[in-house]
């Protein structure tokens, strides 16, 4: 008897909920779907939130998945804008053109890719070669590079990550990563791993390294200065001048790509990101504003 009433109540509740949700779903305006880089996801989410606060009729959905996932999504037509923290590869361009997608790239910020270690590690700097050797697995103990006698515990991203690919191209000279590298799901997981592991090394976007409350690196980790080679000066990724001038060796632009000329809604959002308010948010998140040459290229692509 009780169960009969219970089932009836559930049935009524289901019908009511369906009536409530159906109009909401049907009335949804087309959302701009942004997918891709985990390095950029926090930044783009905040940009989207600020933009939507000023333009409530223009909903934007921001998802992650890694730069590789974003590129695949743009090519397969499952997103409108894709975020990548690396350049597109030639074969990705070919695949896109084959499918009739014409990617147009916009640089919305600049990142100084940061090499982080646990704060208990006494090292303060490494050369590009050393970082490459460590991540290729050629160097397995910290003492080889001037640190304590402790095995190096590698933290990195997975193959869908733009940061993974960027580091492989620019620091590992297109060689394979060490198979012992722990492949974490995102920047945040690398940060947590490095904080907890004394022999660790990891790579994350500079926006993740800065503790927003104190404007300094987070507690528990240390950002290494990187030199181009043994004779050059070492620069920190948190030094805006070094990143802008290219003296910091592993700086990179953060891109968004649309299919062909951006639609009116997409263009409005991109203009917001490139404008003074957007760039202020970029700085607030710990990344760097774009320089003159990117501003020019962006303006051209918007036409």
């Amino acid at each position, binding site marked *: 008897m009780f169960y009969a009433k219970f089932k009836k109540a559930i049935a009524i509740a289901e019908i009511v909920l369906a009536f409530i949700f159906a109009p909401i779903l049907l009335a949804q305006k087309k959302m701009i779907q942004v997918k891709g880089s985990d390095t950029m996801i926090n930044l783009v989410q905040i940009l989207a939130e600020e933009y939507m606060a000023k333009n409530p009729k223009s909903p934007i959905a921001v998802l992650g*998945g*890694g730069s*590789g*996932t974003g*590129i*695949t999504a743009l*090519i*397969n037509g499952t997103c409108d804008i894709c975020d990548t923290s690396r350049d597109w590869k030639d074969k*990705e361009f070919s*695949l896109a053109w084959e499918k009739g997608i014409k990617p147009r790239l916009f640089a919305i910020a600049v990142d100084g890719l940061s090499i982080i270690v646990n704060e208990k590690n006494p090292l303060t700097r490494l050369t590009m070669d050393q970082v490459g050797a460590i991540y290729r697995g050629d160097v397995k103990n910290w003492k080889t590079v001037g640190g304590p006698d*402790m*095995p190096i*515990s590698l933290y990195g991203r*997975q*193959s*869908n990550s733009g940061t993974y*690919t960027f580091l*492989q*191209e620019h620091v590992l000279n*297109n*060689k*394979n*990563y*060490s*198979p*012992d*590298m*722990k*492949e*974490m*799901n995102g920047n945040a997981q690398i940060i*947590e*791993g490095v904080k*907890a*592991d*004394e*022999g*660790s090394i990891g790579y994350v976007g500079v926006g993740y390294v800065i503790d927003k409350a104190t404007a300094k690196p987070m507690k528990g980790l240390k950002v290494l200065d990187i030199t181009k080679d043994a004779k050059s000066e070492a620069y920190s990724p948190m030094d805006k001048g070094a990143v802008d001038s290219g003296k910091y060796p592993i700086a990179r632009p953060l891109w968004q790509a649309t299919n062909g000329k951006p639609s009116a809604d997409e263009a409005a959002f991109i203009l917001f990101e490139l404008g003074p308010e957007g760039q202020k948010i970029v700085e607030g998140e710990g990344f760097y504003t774009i320089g003159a040459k990117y501003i020019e290229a962006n303006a051209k692509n918007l036409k």
Partner: protein
Amino acid sequence: MTKQRLRKLKESAIQVFFFTNGILAIIVLIGIFALLLYSAVPAFREIRIKEFLTSVTWDPTSPVKAEYGILSMIVSTLIVTAGSVIIAFPIGLGVAAYLSDVAHWRVREVVKPVVEILAGIPSVVVGFLGIVLFGPAIAKLFGRTNGLNALNGSVLLAIMALPTIISISEDSLNAVPPVYSEASLALGGSRWQTLVRVKIPAALSGIIASFMLGMGRAIGETMTVLMATGNARSFPHGLLDSVRTMTSNIAIELGEVPYYTTHYYALFAIGLVLFIMTFGVNLIADVFLRKYQEREQ
């Protein structure tokens, strides 16, 4: 139409309806297998099967040479599963025996629902526990710098397999005819002897089936191992190495792989291997069930 004929028609209709539903399960299973096969076979146009099954390097996006060897992942899956079964089986059987034989009925009323709730914990939450709780604990216990390894995965999978093992083992133990225990006690056996030498052997088919089902759950678990085992591609040398199971590899890579490339087909091939493994485990469980049932007759 006569009342008789109408009734017969209704009966046949209902029979057909139930038959269709039953067949549907088989159709779905065959369908999944066919889809996996169809999507996996193109991979072997480019990858030699021997290399696929015996090479320890999986690096399809390598700028140097794309490699598609899954042996490290197969071994990782087996290590994590074996570890979880070694942990879960004694505990699970113990709890089942406790609930069925020793516990006061009031304790049973509390413990049984709690075990069911354990089964309902989402795998991400268990993975989260692995990262923040078991990881540092394992690191401290074994003097390592971090706890993202196969042991962590095994502990978490044991937690997830326990409810299955406990539930089914307890049901099997309860299904043993009371005359067996009564006879044993009447002949002078202690309660412990009755439990270990009479009840458990009598319920063995169900207990082994529970063991196999728990193992099947552990083999197929994705999110938990993705979060807590470190996902390193190297061949594991022990429980304290960071490992990457077949399930987490598929989860990691399927989102970003361009459709209909060798990499894409290779991921389905891994899925096929996984499917065959789980199918095999369930088949063995079934065989055991039947063998002991026949013995009973």
